[in-house]
């Protein structure tokens, strides 16, 4: 299930999973996988979270890859929770990643959590990438660009959902990683980047709603 739209001449599809699909080039773009997050938290003396988020994230990514068979997969930064997490990545997760990357171009764009190239991982590392006049980078900058970083979310029908934010200059992707929180789209930081436009909420079916309206959410018996 996806929602198709035009962004600076690119025909794109926002997938209910939170991934972005560019059918013309057969590119699959995902942001903020945060692989190795539980290992990093444990390493830093934090709680010992269920160490399965890598598998959970790659299971979902694998389902998209199986459905779409992309030529290229782009991680829009923060693919890993930190550089040490790359070395410590669970063997099962690393194998799975290698299998998914088999036979396609895999690009790791650097993020604030993973600024350097992930050694020993499939694919190549870049700071940013261009699709026509549109830049692909981790954090929104000079538009037009497609980015991640903020983990945007919306409130809809009484619940919180991860969401794409689509504005005039910026397309911001939701976080794809399993253990990631969200920043509600009316936060000042996000409202400054996308003052007006659409939010596409993830879910079994993507749901489109307007952004930057004074409209109040409908209230009532839920």
């Amino acid at each position, binding site marked *: 299930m996806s929602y198709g739209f035009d962004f600076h001449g690119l025909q794109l599809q926002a997938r209910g999973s939170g991934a972005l699909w560019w059918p013309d080039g057969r590119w699959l773009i995902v942001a903020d996988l945060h692989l190795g997050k*539980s*290992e990093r938290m*444990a*390493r830093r*003396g*934090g*709680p*010992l*979270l*269920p*160490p*399965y*988020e890598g*598998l*959970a994230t790659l299971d979902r990514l694998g389902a998209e890859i199986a459905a779409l068979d992309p030529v290229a997969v782009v991680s829009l930064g923060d693919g890993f929770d930190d550089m040490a997490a790359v070395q410590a990545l*669970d063997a*099962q997760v690393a194998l799975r990643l290698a299998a998914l990357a088999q036979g396609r171009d895999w690009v790791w764009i650097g993020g604030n959590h993973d600024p350097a190239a992930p050694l020993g991982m499939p694919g190549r590392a870049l700071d940013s990438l261009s699709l026509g006049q549109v830049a692909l980078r981790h954090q929104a900058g000079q538009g037009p660009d497609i980015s991640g970083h*903020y*983990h945007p979310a919306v*409130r*809809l*029908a*009484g*619940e*919180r959902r991860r969401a794409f934010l689509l504005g005039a200059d910026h397309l911001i992707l939701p*976080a794809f990683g*399993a*253990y*990631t*929180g*969200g*920043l*509600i789209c009316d*936060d000042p930081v996000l409202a400054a980047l996308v003052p007006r436009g659409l939010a596409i*909420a993830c*879910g*079994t*079916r993507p*749901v*489109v*709603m*307007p952004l930057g*309206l004074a*409209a*109040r*959410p*409908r*209230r*009532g*018996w*839920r």
Partner: protein
Amino acid sequence: MILPQIFHDWFDRQGWQPHPHQLALLAAKGDSLLIAPTGGGKTLAGFLPSLVELAPVEGPDGYLENREERRGLHTLYVSPLKALTADIARNLGRPVAELGLDIRIEDRTGDTGSAQRRRQRVDPPHVLLTTPESLALMLSYPEAPAIFGGLRRVVLDELHALAESKRGDQLMLGLARLRALSPGVRVTGLSATVEDPQALAGFMAGAAPVEIVEPDPGPDPDIAMLPTAAPAPWAGGGGHYAIPEVLAAVREARTTIIFINTRAQAELFFQALWAANDENLPIGLHHGSLAREQRARVEAAMAAGELRAVVATGSLDLGIDWGAVDLVIQVGAPKNVKRLVQRIGRANHRYNAPSKARIVPANRFEQIECVAALQAVTARDLDGDPRGPGPLDVLCQHILLTACAAPFDADALFAEVVTAGPYRGLSRADFDACLDFAATGGYALRAYDRWQRLMLRDGLWRLRDPRAARLLRMNVGTIVEAEMLKVRMRGRGGAPLGEVEEAFAASLTPGDSFLIGGRVVRMDSLRDMVIQVTPDASQQPKIAVFSGVKLAMSTQLAHRVQAMIGDPVQHTALPKDTRDWLGLQARVSRLPEPGLLLSETFPHAGLWHFAIYGFAGRNALQTLGLLLTREMEEEGLGPLGFLSTDYALLVWSLDPVRDPAPLIDAARLRAGLGDWLGENAVMKRTFRNVAVVAGLIQRNMPGARKSGRQATFSSDILYDTLRKYDPDHLMLRVTADEAGRGLVDFGRIEEMLARSPRREHRVLERVSPLAAPLLLEVGRVPIRGEGRERLAQIEADALMREAGLVA
């Protein structure tokens, strides 16, 4: 031990006689449990043995001399309320001064400053007053053996209340530790009236049995319904119809506590009371969501005798001994006979005087419940469910905190833990599972061998990284609150008003007004997790919903109510308006009766509602709700949510239930137990509590959510991940156990279906009289399914149209 002369003299000077139960506690050889209503010098009874032991004795030459010089901690007092420790410190100060005793008494709670805490660890007072959480924290310090090694006595106040939650389990684990650190320490429990004193004694007992001291309960209480001029409303209403009579009763009494079941209702009642309070009788408001400063002010005014009445929730169920309270008014159904008896006891501060209490049902359904409860009180038929075994999440926390104090031997810790009442039946396998969880996370995937929290070295378990102790200590305690946001008056240093739940805050937009602390305020902004407001009485306020405070009606009482409704002969005991109401229900639909399961379908507020009157208790009906909505989802009816009360279940959906018979088929419901039960919101809520207590996730620290919003994620994700990748994990087992206690097993539903061989379904044009109160209940459980997808689409489309866009 006998009472020394100086104590007799002191009692004489007060014009008092020591009560028999005070002397009985003094004479007790080992651990003891005093069960008595409030008043009657219960606290003094608990402390008397300590004061006597700490008092100077008459030497051979006739002069008083100190016993061997007492240094260090002699008595530890534990109470569920921080406010109570401060109150006790004051109250105990007077006899200690008048008796000329050289005793240092200090309290130690979450509010105690860090300098004093540090000093207390080095140089503890003779008497330390604290809470279960602060005790757990103190036991986690390496100095614990030095602090508690010479402890002689422990006083556990309001033990009946502590035993109702995991705080009691944590306290009993701490007590087992204290008994190990100071063999021979004597423990005294103080409790209000309970249905099963033996069970409570077993709960607090160590190796030796506990002596139960139960003084004569005194005269029967003077308890009745408060007669009112206006009839109770059909539904909800919060008892406002009775305001004139309540005010009149307050006027006649010296000091009144008006108990109301929920914080929201307390706010509304307080406001309505003041609107009619022409004489300006000083009346205060007290509930757990008010700012601490606000509550302290009311407590102080009450203690000083400046208030004629306080509108309160369960926040005043315990503690604070106000000698002058001579009337208790219970607004709304008491839900539970034992709690009603305990509340009535609050108006009993003169020993052997009958307590006076009046009951105001909020609506006509509650009238039935109130009459049934009064009958139970008269029959001294207390209700209550037996306590389950000690939960394992509390044990996990205990293991981690034990490691913070010092390396430990697993066998020795296990031997100590099973001396705690709630953990007497703990198996070694369960203990080892908890230890493994604490050490490695306990995952099937052994991912954390390098980063274990606890390591086994030289036969002892210890923290891998001693710095982790700080984080673990920050997570101490078993109370997991809903996410709350503070409410403050606008401007720099604006006065704190209280807290509201995050979910309620999310429904507010700037300009909305709501009710808090008895005043209507307008929301200006939400910044740094604080809602800034300005006073504004110009609009109809929204009502803050506090979901955490709902009382559950006991099943015993629910059955009494069902029997009363179903038996027209018993209707004569009910007020006329209630008889009329039941009569109307009989005309527009029909009355439920024993052996008959009644259900109704009706439209309300744009959605279809399905009500089923099972009288099986809230928990069983909640389980039924979870299963029934699954069936409705399968039938494509688009269920959006449900709520359960003690007598009925209400489900709302996009399409109506026309024929419930196939839906409420026992075999079909049972088939759905497995998966659906695991995926629902109740389980996720339970999981969050368990995971916080066990230390799987960190409690949200003040300010931690301020900026790092992307970093925090919902515990639901952890729950789903564990279910998929590690379904046998300890945390899921503990969650299922706890939900099993809350949700109750499927047997109760089968019993309800078997008990009601006849079924009857009515399709109505509007809400039935019996269903109306359900619409006002809080505690809705959302269902994530096709219905919600459709609703999300409808809502988003409406916004798009409003924006002039086409989706």
